[in-house]
């Protein structure tokens, strides 16, 4: 089986600092994979390289069998790579519905002229996009707050709005950057449930970063471990838990 996503020899240098060094990674369709490591290990840089926010110094990235190394961020997003952010980045001056509608694509594109003249084409596109955005928000339990400002939502809802917004791209690969950060155990349990459910419903492949080992080990089928930009381990949660290198670099001797 060919991988949905494949990175080979991925490297990023900033001046003399090597943030990501020669990392190989492969995700098959439907995988739910974790990316862990101590602070400054290069996890977020990895996300930036995968999403095209940053161009790798060397190495190649293939997505759906195509070489997409060096593609820009919006091009990767349109190909089906969506992400959420470590520090929430919602558009605060737009309401909840518009945050999702800004990302949705209509089945038929609506150009400048039809938007300004409010032609039937515009109305059709607008209806389609609104329906899609509302459906997504409802699935994430945000159906009652469409007209609110995202800044007024509780923290957990803001995180879920970010996921709804990412799903509006119809992604195949979803990257979650510390989705459980700042959540209490109940919220984390609910989030685990949501992530699992979304993977089924939207046929997603998910790669996530988190520092909560219970969360990561509880949900991921495979885990990559980074330290100083290098991949030091890769395996199932059980293998990772007992890997001496990982214990030394990150987990401490809890096993």
């Amino acid at each position, binding site marked *: 089986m060919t991988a949905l996503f494949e990175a080979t020899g991925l490297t990023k240098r900033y001046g003399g600092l090597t943030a990501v060094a020669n990392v190989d990674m492969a995700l098959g369709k439907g995988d739910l994979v974790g990316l862990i490591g101590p602070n400054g290990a290069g996890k977020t840089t990895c996300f930036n390289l995968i999403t095209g926010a940053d161009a790798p110094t060397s190495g190649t990235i293939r997505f759906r069998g195509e070489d997409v190394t060096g593609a820009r961020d*919006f091009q990767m997003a349109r190909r089906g790579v969506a992400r959420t952010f470590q520090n929430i980045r919602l558009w605060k*001056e*737009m309401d909840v519905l518009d945050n999702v*509608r*800004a990302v949705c694509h209509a089945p038929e594109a*609506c150009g400048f002229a039809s*938007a300004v003249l409010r032609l039937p084409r515009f109305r059709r596109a607008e209806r389609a996009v609104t329906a899609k955005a509302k459906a997504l928000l409802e699935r994430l339990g945000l159906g009652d707050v469409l007209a609110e400002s995202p800044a007024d939502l509780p923290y957990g809802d803001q995180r879920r709005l970010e996921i709804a917004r990412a799903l509006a791209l119809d992604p195949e690969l979803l990257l979650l950057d510390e989705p459980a950060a700042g959540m209490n155990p109940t919220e984390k349990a609910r989030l685990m449930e949501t992530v699992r459910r979304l993977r089924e419903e939207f046929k997603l492949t998910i790669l996530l970063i988190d520092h909560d080992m219970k969360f990561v080990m509880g949900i991921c089928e495979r885990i990559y471990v980074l330290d100083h930009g290098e991949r030091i381990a890769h395996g199932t949660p059980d293998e990772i838990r007992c890997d001496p290198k990982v214990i030394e670099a990150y987990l401490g001797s809890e096993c």
Partner: protein
Amino acid sequence: MSSELLFWLNLLVGVGIYTLLAASLNLINGSAGMFHLGHHGFWALGAYGATWMTLQGGSLSGPVVYVSSLIFAMAIAALGGLSIGIPCLRLRGDYLAIATLGFGEIVRIAVQNSPHDFLGGSLGIQVPRVLMKVTPKTLVAFRVLTLSIVAVACAAAIVTFRNYLRSMPGRRLLAVAQDETAAGLLGINPTRSKVLAFVMGSAVAGLAGGLYAHYMGGINPLNFNFMEMVKIFLIIVLGGMGSLSGCAVGAFLVVATEQLLNRAPEAIASWWQVLFPLILAIMIIFRPQGIFGRREIRDVWRSWRRRTA
């Protein structure tokens, strides 16, 4: 009586032209969040473009020349917007402000140094009257006609901007303005959104230039100096960045203040140059969101009714 009427007609035409300038600057500065300080350059491009086109008009009928010169004014300003937009829009904040300010001044200085038989150079240039004959007798009619045309242009521009902002490409632009990084990672091409807003804004400034040239009957480079940019900027700060109705209200306040001061004795009249930057400073300190903020007249009216109900 007639002179009083003429005064107010002149004032309202001014309000209309500055509303166009402010609404288009507002699209760029307020909605798209780009700090652009060269709007007087696009205004000048439009005014000189329309003048040049009118001079080429020859034996064509007046209204045809008038309309085609306005279209040409928009096109040339849009082209100017595109040609400086693409290289400059990678810049952010202050750097963009400096680059666009430079552009505005280049346009004015280039015209100032142009040959007399081309754009009139520093002495300015006459714009042939093509809309109708303008004599002391027909002055009222001319101003009423111009006012109606300007009002239609304002309405068209405001409806265009409003509809644009409430559509998919408009929402993408607002997303880019608020968080460009997030927008890019969510499939929005930030450069495309910003260039489009910049080109739309400059085209409408060009239209304002064309209307202005035909109304004045003669223009010179000093009509488009940096003080004009300050005035347009003051209007959007007063009205509220991001509010289209704010532009009309702000334009009225600023133009009326200026024109009424102009009637006062010389010693007082020249104080507007001090007054405007002062109002600008006071607004930014005490009410940076402007009179309307991001709201429109309709929102203000609704919330007022709710409170009094």
